[in-house]
């Protein structure tokens, strides 16, 4: 019995250190002068500088990829949550033929490899003159974001007690009014969690953003960072400063909503 007492704490400590160390190391390096980055690493901070962050915004205009990522991930999220919520409500609360088939189909689409649609999407976007535009990224992003949103929302809607809307409908409200006036307000936490997860997935997306943009003016944050590497020299200080900035918004969002996110992510997977 006494062994059980400390063992989980040791494992927990290991997990936290292992998870945090690469991030700590990047954070530290992003404030270290370039010349000292590869000269005898030291675990503790000493003479920190802001030069990498300054260079990022003055020489590299890093606010452009940030703006692009916010616009693309934000639009994708807004569209998917609005449209996905209707579909998810139907799948979670209404009875109709082909329901489980539809649910399985949506899940299957969410799992198929992105690379398998790159070539047609490229040709489609090219013929619509949408290469290197915001809609030219939002449209491909729907391939993974829409199934994800629907899947998560079905899970959240199912957790709400069915009596609520039944009561509203007995009082004479239509299905749609019951949905809008009873379910949606109650599902706000679930909708917010879904929106955050969709945003995180879209913010982090790389393959489509790399394939369908041509230059810095429409590149998203992950693409911009991955292409920092010069021909002869790797600007590690700036890369890591950019890494810290790219990590910050998703980390804060996820930490602020951690309990609900874990619920949302594991509910679909382990609720039998």
């Amino acid at each position, binding site marked *: 019995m006494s062994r059980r007492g400390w063992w989980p704490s040791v494992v927990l400590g290991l997990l936290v250190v292992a998870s945090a160390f*690469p991030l700590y190391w990047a954070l530290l390096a992003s404030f270290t002068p370039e010349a000292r980055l590869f*000269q005898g690493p030291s675990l503790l901070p000493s003479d920190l500088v802001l030069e990498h962050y300054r260079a990022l915004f003055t020489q590299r205009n890093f606010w452009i990829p940030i703006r692009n990522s916010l616009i693309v991930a934000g639009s994708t999220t807004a569209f998917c949550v609005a449209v996905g919520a209707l579909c*998810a409500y139907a799948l979670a609360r209404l009875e109709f033929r082909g329901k489980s088939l539809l649910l399985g189909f949506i899940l299957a689409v969410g799992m198929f490899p992105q690379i398998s649609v790159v070539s047609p999407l490229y040709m489609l976007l090219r013929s619509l003159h949408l290469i290197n535009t915001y809609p030219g990224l939002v449209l491909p992003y729907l391939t993974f974001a*829409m199934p994800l949103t629907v899947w998560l929302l079905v899970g959240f809607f199912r957790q709400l007690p069915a009596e609520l809307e039944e009561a509203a409908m007995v009082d004479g409200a239509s299905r749609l009014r019951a949905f809008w006036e009873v379910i949606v307000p109650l599902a706000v936490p679930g909708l917010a969690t879904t929106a955050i997860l969709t945003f995180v997935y879209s913010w982090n997306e790389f393959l489509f953003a790399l394939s369908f943009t041509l230059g810095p003016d429409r590149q998203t944050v992950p693409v911009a960072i991955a292409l920092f590497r010069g021909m002869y020299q790797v600007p590690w200080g700036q890369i890591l400063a950019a890494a810290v900035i790219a990590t910050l918004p998703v980390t804060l969002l996820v930490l602020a909503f951690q309990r609900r996110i874990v619920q949302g992510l594991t509910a679909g997977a382990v609720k039998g």
Partner: protein
Amino acid sequence: MPGAEPTGSVERKEARLAWGLALPAVSTILLVALFPLAWTFWESLHLHDLRMPWLERPFIGLANYLEAFGDPRFRGSLLHTVFFAATSVTLELVIGLWLALSLNRAFRGRGLVRAAVLVPWAIPTVVSALLWRFMFEGQTGIVNAALMDAGLLREPVVWFIQPNTAWVPVILADVWKTTPFVALLLLAGLQNIDSSLYEAARIDGASAWRQFRHVTLPLLKPAILVALIFRTLDAFRVFDLIYALTGGGPGTSTEPIALYTFNTLLQNLQFGYGSALSVIVFLVTFGLALVYIRFLGAELLGTRR
């Protein structure tokens, strides 16, 4: 539900409403996912090279597929993908299970576990790839320094110039990013197991190992299966991680199939051949999912509403 034909007008109205609500999302998915997928299949049967427009786009049947199977770079990339998937998923499941079992009894620090799990999972894969590249970079990176301080290395290893050593940071970065998530899924599964089952087993005199073997493992199977499916499918389409970490190098010795396909399409502009490779990636992942569900998942799908 098949066989449950709605008869009353109320049911029919409800079904009509349901399809009406689902229509926008479903048609979006058809338009941006299923239609392109069908297009990839069609494209893969053509010779289509954007660098040589004068060839136009003749139908060549399965010639692209035949070319793929004779293409050493394709076979290499397939092999790299299988190696990467097998190694990383095995490590992630074993370590994840160990973490979940150890943390299941902990009552303090739940919030800390969640934070430690979610942060690596939530950061962009490209970023985690670059963090690991940085740690392994150069003769004096932190990894070389730590290994030499510990006396495990006599002289620094240049990790990225040899195929064998270049895989090390790739696998570690993937394990670092996704093991916590696997642990989280398994932990949720463990918490669904009724603790009275363990009491009963203990009263029957079952050892810890027998409890694990006969209570935990069978009941955890659905959660393990879900983790296995998600991780294997993810590992098979690995792209961001390797693109940013090794670029497929040295040479093409860490190039996975998704990266080779990407290069064929957008560097070489061979759309017909690249589409055939895309179809192969799709079929392999689809086949894997079917195999898992067929052999391990009957009860999983049966119990899910």
